[in-house]
């Protein structure tokens, strides 16, 4: 396995996702009106870092900014004197209907969108992997029930299911913050493909020699599944995880776009698109850049998933 070359697609996908994740993780430092380095009353300070750790923002004429952040705007700073400005040197991606910097919002949106996508995918895996593993390994009635449940839930399109749950379970979920609520709902409505995939894998492996040998040695089901079957199923699980992250990011964006996900003023890629839709007749830039970001994220996830599949699963490889 070690000598197998990393497919270029996988490398590209990791690069794209890594860059997006880095932007998301570093958002409070990348897009902020606080300078990175400033001179305040004769002392060199780092206001951006200070604000990040709860310190005070810079103010007053005694401050001189020496090094600004790459995107020197706050995502929620409203500037009614600069409404819907096209991309310029000052605002690289223009401003939106409230004069907010689109790039700053895009950077901070990456943080929320990617975090929601990752958490939701993790939840989906947490539900889907054990369920699918159990069903596939046990077979029989358990498998029949779980498989039917997967089929039944899959029959309702994910977006509809998520919308229905968000709407009807509003009372239960009210205590959660927008982003957490969306992550939970997207995760709990997205486990089915994972479970189906893992089930198929475990079904295949349950008759393998490793399993018979482990059973002969007296291992119980749980140990066999965790210790001997799961390692062989790691490849498909990883592949599914990558696809699931991509799917979760898109569903979150769709929900926020439709008005039932993360609400304004919090920036996510979906809510940016929802805002942009209102001004679509007069300005293209608030819509095009978040759309491209989402597109990049999906391409990145797909490339990683397919690359992993090619790398880890020789059966799926084609010439």
């Amino acid at each position, binding site marked *: 396995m070690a000598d197998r070359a990393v497919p270029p697609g996988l490398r590209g996908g990791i690069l794209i996702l890594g860059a997006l994740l880095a932007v998301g993780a570093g958002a409070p430092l990348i897009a902020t009106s606080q300078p990175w380095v400033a001179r305040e009353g004769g002392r060199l300070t780092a206001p951006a870092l200070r604000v990040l750790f709860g310190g005070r923002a810079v103010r007053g004429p005694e401050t001189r900014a020496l090094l600004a952040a790459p995107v020197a705007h706050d995502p929620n700073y409203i500037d009614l004197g600069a409404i819907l400005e096209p991309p310029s040197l000052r605002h690289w991606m223009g401003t939106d209907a409230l004069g907010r910097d689109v790039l700053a919002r895009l950077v901070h949106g990456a943080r929320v969108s990617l975090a929601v996508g990752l958490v939701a995918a993790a939840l989906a895996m947490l539900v889907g992997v054990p369920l699918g593993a159990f069903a596939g390994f046990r077979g029989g009635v358990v498998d*029949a029930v779980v498989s*039917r*449940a997967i*089929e*039944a*839930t*899959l*029959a*309702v*399109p*994910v*977006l*509809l*299911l998520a*919308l*229905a*749950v*968000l*709407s*009807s*379970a*509003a*009372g*239960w979920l009210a205590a959660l913050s927008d982003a957490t609520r969306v992550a939970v709902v997207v995760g709990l409505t997205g486990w089915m493909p994972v479970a189906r995939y893992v089930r198929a894998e475990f079904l295949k492996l349950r008759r393998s020699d490793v399993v018979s040998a482990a059973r002969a040695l007296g291992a119980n089901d749980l140990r066999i599944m965790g210790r001997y079957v799961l390692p062989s199923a790691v490849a498909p699980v990883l592949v599914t995880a990558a696809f699931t992250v991509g799917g979760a990011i*898109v569903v979150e*964006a*769709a929900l926020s*776009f*439709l*008005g*039932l996900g993360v609400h304004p003023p919090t920036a996510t890629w979906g809510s940016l*698109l929802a805002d*942009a*839709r209102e001004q*679509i*007749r007069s300005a*293209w830039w608030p*819509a*095009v850049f*978040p*759309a*491209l970001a*989402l*597109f990049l994220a*999906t*391409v990145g996830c*797909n490339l990683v998933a397919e690359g992993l599949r090619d790398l880890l699963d020789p059966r799926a490889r084609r010439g």
Partner: protein
Amino acid sequence: MADDRGTAGVALGSAPRVARMLRAIARRLTSGFLTLLLLTVLVFSLVKLAPGTPLAEAADEGLARLPPTTQAELERLYHLDQPLHWQYGLWLTSMLRGDLGTSFHDRRPVTAKIRERLGTTLGLNAAALAISILLAVPLGAFAAWRPGSWPDRSIGLVTYFVHALPVFCGALLLQIAFSVHLGWLPLAGIATDGTASGGTLATALDRIRHMVLPVVCLSYGSLAYLSRFVRATLLENASAESTLAARARGLGPVVAFVRHGFRLAAIPMLTLAGLLLPALVGGSVIVESIFAVPGLGRMFLDAALQRDLPVLLGLTLLAGVSTLVGIVASDVAYSLVDPRLRRG
């Protein structure tokens, strides 16, 4: 997938073969029915997820707090005093009678609301499905004709990226390009004001112009997916024995490719069409809301935003049931068409 039991199966008489096929179909129908039942349980649990009871809902609407006796009476009326499984049974029977309840929003029966909008959404989806199949098959075949050539590579690259573009992003980009900047197509809606008086041809043309972008948005995802699928299936079958045999019989490469390759590819495509349905329905919600099309998708979103539970659940059930029926039907069609399965 190769089947090495092929020759043994041919030797079997036709009567047991038919019986076996019928048994496979019966099995599929049974499991489909069980799935359907589980689906209703799922939707019913969504009802129960909703906060409070219908009585609390009524109280929210400004009805005064009810005296305990009236409340108990009402609970009896709505069977809220019954155990959960009994409530489920009652709910299921009313669903089976075609009673989906009345909308919280405008007090009209859900079935009536669905009926008046069904045509729009069905038309939109049918057009989208037809277009994606009609375009995907030649596109995929063209790509598979010379695998690795530059047309194949460029088709592959384009469909790969198009498939990764979420439908609401694609819709906004198309609106910006074709409606705002080029001005070729209307931005949204289903008809221009005032065209109704301009004669039938003008009206029809106007309608079609309004449908172009929604249909494109609904179909491009499945078009990309299908064409890749067609290519892969044709390639898999290009070296199939029947195709080779046809070549050996002296048929030209194109005829052999089309006549035999496609025959084999038709079967998996049949199942795929059933699987594409959920994506289309999900896409309808987004596309109809972006393009202001008064269909079921728009109705679903409105119901979700207004917490109009009966409408929401009625549509969820409808989407789930129609998808399941589509999948089971395509599976049954599969077992009718596929000789390997017929012997299985």
